[in-house]
């Protein structure tokens, strides 16, 4: 039998090696896989995307900006530009360059892949929203046009990605709507979030942490050059203008006016209290949203907090005569207007209890 000390050491060495190779995300194996995916095609497509972004925002793309965006040095950037021109995706006019119609179509297909994939991650998977962008950056280079059309059909041909950006159609058509930045909306005018920029990452993470989502209703309380204070989703938020610049809105459409009431989160109700549902916040998506609606949690439904579990979470709510347990992370995404005891008493008098 081998010496136990030696076999322990060998096992420890094997474990260390395995960790070094396969540690999630940082392991050598995953890095090697990533590096393999970051091949010429990926960089070329990323270059097209960058130039297209510049054109949309009316900025002039340059070798420097391209090198910065792709994380490569200027020489390599020049090589890629030459390569793109060779494929007739790019045209030079003196110092400057711009996309040819073919190049623009190509760029739009990459954008379509990116945004559709984000939509897919949001609607049909359980990935955290902070992960959407990074994953879409990988998958946008791997999906063929046929894949994209299938995916689009499966998702019901969505028009916008979860951040509110329009998804180009298969024929490359795209329409950007008018948006008002959060700083530009008047005080006390109801508006709806239509776009949240997902870059830079740190800013986006802060907006996610605030619980802001496309589709939420906003009412600005105070707007100055130092800060913007507003109501959204039953809470008061305060953002620095730099952060707020990444949130855009549209005036509240007619049909959603009735959702514009202050309300509070379902989790605010104590056992024995009741509230009337105003709506489920947009953070709850896809299958989870349908499940809540299946259970009868719809605008107008009265929900009673019946009891807490011994550890405080989940809580059992009485919804349309059934007793349903919801976790706090779900219940806080349901907005209710408190129903006062006197009203309940009144209804009890009528029913003779």
């Amino acid at each position, binding site marked *: 039998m*081998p010496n136990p000390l030696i076999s322990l050491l060998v096992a420890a060495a094997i474990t260390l090696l395995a960790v070094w190779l396969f540690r999630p995300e940082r392991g050598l194996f995953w890095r090697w896989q990533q590096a393999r995916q970051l091949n010429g095609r990926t960089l070329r497509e990323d270059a097209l995307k960058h130039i297209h972004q510049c054109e949309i925002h009316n900025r002039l793309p340059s070798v420097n900006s391209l090198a910065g965006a792709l994380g490569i040095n200027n020489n390599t950037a020049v090589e890629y530009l030459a390569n793109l021109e060779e494929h007739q995706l790019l045209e030079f006019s003196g110092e400057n360059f711009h996309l040819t119609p073919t190049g623009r179509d190509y760029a739009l297909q990459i954008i379509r892949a990116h945004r559709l994939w984000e939509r897919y991650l949001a609607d049909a998977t359980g990935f955290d929203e902070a992960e959407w962008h990074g994953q879409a950056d990988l998958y946008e280079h791997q999906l063929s046009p046929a894949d994209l059309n299938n995916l689009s059909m499966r998702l019901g041909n969505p028009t916008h990605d979860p951040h509110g950006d329009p998804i180009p159609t298969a024929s490359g058509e795209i329409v950007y709507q008018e948006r008002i930045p959060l700083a530009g909306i008047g005080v006390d005018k109801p508006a709806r979030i239509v776009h949240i920029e997902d870059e830079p990452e740190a800013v986006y993470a802060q907006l996610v942490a605030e619980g802001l989502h496309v589709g939420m209703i906003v009412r600005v309380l105070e707007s100055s050059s130092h800060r913007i204070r507003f109501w959204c989703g039953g809470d008061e938020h305060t953002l620095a203008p730099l952060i707020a610049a990444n949130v855009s809105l549209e005036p509240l459409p007619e049909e959603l006016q009735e959702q514009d009431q202050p309300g509070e989160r379902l989790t605010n109700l104590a056992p024995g209290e009741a509230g009337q549902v105003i709506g489920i916040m947009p953070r709850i998506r896809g299958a989870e949203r349908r499940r809540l609606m299946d259970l009868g949690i719809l605008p107008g439904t009265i929900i009673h907090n019946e009891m807490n579990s011994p550890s405080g979470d989940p809580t059992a709510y009485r919804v349309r005569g059934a007793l349903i347990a919801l976790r706090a992370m779900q219940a806080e995404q349901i907005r209710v207007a408190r129903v006062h005891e006197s009203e309940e008493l009144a209804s009890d008098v009528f029913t003779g209890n």
Partner: protein
Amino acid sequence: MNTQTPSPEDILNTAQSLRWEVGSDFHEHLMESMYTDAARIADRAVTRPDEKPRFDLDRTIDRLVTSRAFGFPLMLALLTLVFWLTIAGANVPSRWLSWLLLDTLQPILKGFGATIGLPWWINGLLFDGMYLATAWVISVMLPPMAIFFPLFTLLEDYGYLPRVAFNLDNMFRKVGAHGKQALSMTMGFGCNAAGVVATRVIDSPRERLIAIITNNFALCNGRWPTQILIATLFIGGLVPAQLAGLLSAMSVVVIAVLGVLFSFLVSWSLSRTVLRGEVSTFSLELPPYRPPRIWQTIYTSVIDRTLIVLWRAVTFALPAGAIIWLSANITFGGVSIAEYLINFLNPAGLLLGLNGVILVAYIVAIPANEIVIPTVLMLTVLVTGTSSMGAGAGVMFETQSKVEMITLLHAGGWTLLTAINLMLFSLLHNPCSTTIYTIYKETRSLKWTLISTLLPVVMGFVVTFFVAQVWRLVAGIL
């Protein structure tokens, strides 16, 4: 061009441009307003006879069974009662069945085979191999399942089990699982295949997969006898006779609790790695209490759970019995296949603090955990050449005499470490083939079936390996 009727292209173009105006959450809003309208119409049209929403009795029971003070003690008491009824109640019928099928019927069948002139090897294959393995599985498995499942179903039917899930959900939420996993896990203590089927109550895809993959960490009915026997023989023997029962019972409980801890650990890591992107939708309905329909419950639980699981076990035990018998009886150069395998696996087994016999027993006993110990005993006799025991090559047996058994195992080179590691490996190894097949039927995915099969056995290798090395290191120093 006709301006009165628009061409299809015009309609498509208009639709294209309208599409952008309508926006992306159009479907959601449409669906939500349809739901809402339907609910409003129903509210207006349907009158409920009794507006009093819930019976006061229901509410009182709920307050009691989910209260901070009584919730957990009540739950533990009820589950202990169910387990006690199962173990105590199954003892007698199990012994009776084993007397009938193993001690009485088997010799008669074999004698009958001999009288009608079957060649010895067909007789052995049929009655020592296939019949014996199947009879063994039935006599060990049937009585506890026929008691445990109806009791469990009664609790479910009464409405108590959802309250257990409600009480325990917070613990399971922290590891990324669903409170109802407590139910499928408890069911797994009866039978893992039934536990996997029981995960159907979990409607969230991710949590259901977690519950399926980790169900094997609930020590099933086929493994309890192994644990109890080894604990009694080796661990109970460490202390004076009056403490032996207590210590061996405690060591089995430690293994079962270890299993629960492993299932939490694995749930936690699964939900953070391979299952990260799966959809999760939590909801838990707490149905009103109602008097259980006893006869219907017994009927459905016997038919749905007991018989189906038993039938699957039998279909897997038949070929396993044949393989066990053949491997012990087909010889090359005077050495049987089983012995070749045992010698081949012995170094690996010893490194893990087990031995070749145990590894071979776990390979041939994949169909049913119940036959691990009988196979181990048979193979040990085969290897050590102890002819005073057993009924010949390939014939599984168990003996009532503890002294006989421990003498045989010591002759086979067993130590306290072997016993402890066998208990650990019995907890951490691949699910039985019935469970594997059930997992495949429930998930319809080769990937998840493979993961749930290989993950526990790899963990078993790792755990027994480290225990063995540390044990030897400490023993070397002392």
